[in-house]
């Protein structure tokens, strides 16, 4: 790079950064209070927008001038909607489970007067003497936020916030390095593809750069199709600029001029935020022709997927970008040699790309200092299912599953027993208690029969049936199979039919062998990852929970009391209270009626097994139970 070009770039950026920092300082270091609301999709599902409206209305009513900022996901999804109030004289305080009424109280009692409403506090963001801070939480000892650093801290629709917090300075640094040095730096960092397969990112870039074809493309794979995973959604919604910055750096390194961000259509908010971010980046001359006044030109287009799981596979994703049905192609050639329109193309996951600015900014050594020998850096997991602290966590590679589930996630709610954790979605597997001490990295999880996948982690407890979850995933992969390979198309259908039979109590004991044979054949006879990994949920549940399969087949019994055909709801006459009608009123199909003694009885013919009555039965009676097999219900009530 020529000296005057460098000068233009750095001076343009310095000016931009100065302005951004000025604005950020005015916002948070003034004598005004600032209210921050977590408004990513999960926050919105819990009612964050109603809270924002209530806050703004109440502030107006009280004639207060206090900015309300909508940020992304803070990771504490279990406590949504979340509000953070930063008032001069107090540490920034985070409130959980806020509703419009609490929001109004926060304005009247904390902002207007000086009562910080301690009863709604989740924790403070900084150490202080008044309120316990998040650093005192047990999870703080395990978490290390790199990719999620900005999530929930900045307004994702304001590029200034990103720049004021160190954003785009990695780009300026990268532009001063020759592309080969840049690739070497990424290689040295040991970053492996965060989409699940774990291919070294630097190597992929190097192959693509060395290819003669032109133009080259860079694609960000945000087609997060795994049910149960939402890390990419959270990053795109909360910190879209980190992905864009990573893409520009990648584009410069491999010599690409165009990039695509491929986002699922099921993520409308992510689509909107990325669009805004792209517009702002273009306006700030960080994207488009002559970036920051230098000679580099690079632009990004957003492409919305259309709801096909298989498009997460890179060749299928390319087919869909080209306007065809998303059917995978045989590899090699890999996209790095021949991808979009037959040109060299790098496809990276959202999390891989958003790691890039951090690697460039802090150096490969810094990044590689975290993690295990073969898997460097941090892993982001989406915790969901039967776990107390659902949400997003980022921990160093090598942390054990037990630490993530029981220390970070605070274990299983309701005093229930842990049964298994499902990792990696339909391609992954269910790991039991005995596998919990495995340190998480790409290779150890594969050895245990699961896989890293994109990072969805669904925790299952004693009420979850392992045969049913295997059936659920097979139903999913069977429906999403593109139909190209015979084994995947027909094999998964056979497996699904067998599993459905088992969950209906019509399984035969030889079905288990058949499942294993089919699984082997499907894995051998399928082209892409979807088919190759589709049998994993069945194989791991068979490996660790074979007794549940046998109970379904031999006794017609579902040990977890989940499979609808194998259970019946029953009211224990001795426990049922004559004067109570709670269950009758809530039954959605009017299947419950009292007998002559006013003891309630369920009409098994009418019952749809929705479980509403169990919730409604007051805990002091606790009279309704599930029985399996259904023949356990006394004959007099059938």
């Amino acid at each position, binding site marked *: 790079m020529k000296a005057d070009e460098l000068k233009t770039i750095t001076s343009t950026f310095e000016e931009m950064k100065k302005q951004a920092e000025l604005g950020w300082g005015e916002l948070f270091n003034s004598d005004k209070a600032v209210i921050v609301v977590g408004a990513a999709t999960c926050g919105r599902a819990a009612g964050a927008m109603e809270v924002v409206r209530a806050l703004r209305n109440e502030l107006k009513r009280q004639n207060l001038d206090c900015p309300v900022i909508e940020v992304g996901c803070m990771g504490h999804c279990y406590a949504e909607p979340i509000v953070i109030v930063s008032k001069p004289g107090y540490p920034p305080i985070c409130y959980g489970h806020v509703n419009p009424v609490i929001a109004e109280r926060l304005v009247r009692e904390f902002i207007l007067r000086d009562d910080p409403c301690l009863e709604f506090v989740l924790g403070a963001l900084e150490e202080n003497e008044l309120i316990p801070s998040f650093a005192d939480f047990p999870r703080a000892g395990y978490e290390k936020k790199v990719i999620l650093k900005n999530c929930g801290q900045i307004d994702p629709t304001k590029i200034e916030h990103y720049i004021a917090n160190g954003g785009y300075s990695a780009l300026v640094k990268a532009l001063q390095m020759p592309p080969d040095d840049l690739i070497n730096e990424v290689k040295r960092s040991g970053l492996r593809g965060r989409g699940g397969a774990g291919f070294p990112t630097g190597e992929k870039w190097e192959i693509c750069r060395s290819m003669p074809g032109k133009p080259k493309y860079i694609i960000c794979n945000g087609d997060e199709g795994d*049910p149960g995973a939402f890390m990419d959604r959270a990053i795109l919604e909360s910190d879209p600029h980190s992905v864009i910055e990573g893409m520009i750096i990648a584009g410069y390194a491999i010599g690409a001029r165009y990039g695509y961000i491929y986002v699922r259509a099921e993520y409308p908010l992510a689509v909107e935020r990325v669009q805004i971010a792209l517009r702002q980046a273009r306006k700030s001359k960080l994207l488009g022709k002559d970036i920051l006044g230098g000679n580099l030109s690079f632009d990004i287009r957003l492409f*919305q997927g259309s709801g096909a799981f298989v498009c997460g596979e890179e060749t299928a994703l390319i087919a869909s970008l080209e*306007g065809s049905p998303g059917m995978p192609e045989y590899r090699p050639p890999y996209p790095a040699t021949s991808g979009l329109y037959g040109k060299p193309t790098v496809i990276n996951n959202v999390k891989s790309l958003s790691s890039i600015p951090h690697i460039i900014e802090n150096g490969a050594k810094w990044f590689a200092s975290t993690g295990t020998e073969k898997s460097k850096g941090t892993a982001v997991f989406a915790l*969901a299912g039967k776990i107390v602290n659902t949400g997003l966590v980022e921990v160093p590679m090598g942390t054990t599953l037990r630490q993530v589930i029981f220390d970070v996630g605070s274990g299983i709610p309701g005093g229930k027993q842990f049964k298994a954790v499902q990792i990696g979605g339909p391609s992954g597997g269910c790991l039991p208690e005995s596998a919990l001490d495995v340190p998480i990295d790409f290779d150890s999880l594969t050895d245990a029969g699961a896989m890293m996948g994109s990072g969805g982690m669904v925790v299952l407890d004693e009420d979850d049936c392992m045969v049913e979850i295997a059936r659920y995933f097979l139903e999913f992969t069977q429906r999403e199979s593109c139909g190209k390979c015979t084994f995947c198309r027909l094999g998964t259908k056979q497996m699904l039919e067998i599993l459905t039979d088992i969950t209906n109590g019509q399984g035969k004991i030889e079905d288990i062998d058949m499942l294993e044979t089919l699984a082997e054949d499907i894995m051998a006879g399928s082209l892409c990852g979807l088919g190759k990994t589709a049998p994993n949920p069945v194989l791991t549940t068979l490996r660790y929970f074979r007794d549940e399969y046998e109970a379904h087949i031999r006794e017609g019994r579902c040990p977890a009391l989940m499979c609808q055909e194998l259970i019946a709801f029953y009211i224990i006459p001795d426990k049922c209270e004559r004067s109570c009608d709670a269950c009758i009123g809530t039954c*959605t199909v009017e299947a419950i009626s009292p007998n002559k003694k006013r003891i309630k009885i369920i009409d098994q013919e009418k019952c749809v097994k*929705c479980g509403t009555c169990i919730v409604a039965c007051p805990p002091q009676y606790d009279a309704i139970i599930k029985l399996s097999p259904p023949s356990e219900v006394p004959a007099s009530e059938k």
Partner: protein
Amino acid sequence: MVAGYKGTSVTEEQAKIRQETKQTIKRFGRKRGNLIPILQKVQERLGYLPREAMTEIAEFLKIPEIDVYGVVTFYNQFRLNPPGRHAIRVCLGTACHMKGGYITLDAWKRRLDIDRGETTPDREFDLDTVACVGCCTMAPVTVVDNKPEGKVEPTKVDGILLAFEHEREGKGKKKKQ
């Protein structure tokens, strides 16, 4: 083929669909890579992808109609029948399923008296499932008119329907006044 085919009369509705499709797609470049964005835009405007619209798009991009139909039927997002006024999407992601999403789906089916992928005869509601909307922590989730609602169990299904009923009654009253 119905519309535009030799000898068949083009009904008013079909002509209108063609007109609206034309309007929507004219700002796109005529290249194959734009097929999916075009389909998304047209569905956004019409609510679904009728045959006439697909024909129009095929002509616009100069590709066989079967290619358009192939793409439309491959991807879950596209629909071939008109939607209801309110879209009910039950999430069946892993977390939602394990927390009883299938029970919620049953409740919707029972209350609306339609199966997944169908629209009520009065075109008020259409019911479908979605693979995962990424709100796993709020499971079980139902997306009602693009707004994800958390913890939708059978009783909340009744609650949501009741709210719609009130809304309709409210509107009716206003009209009368």
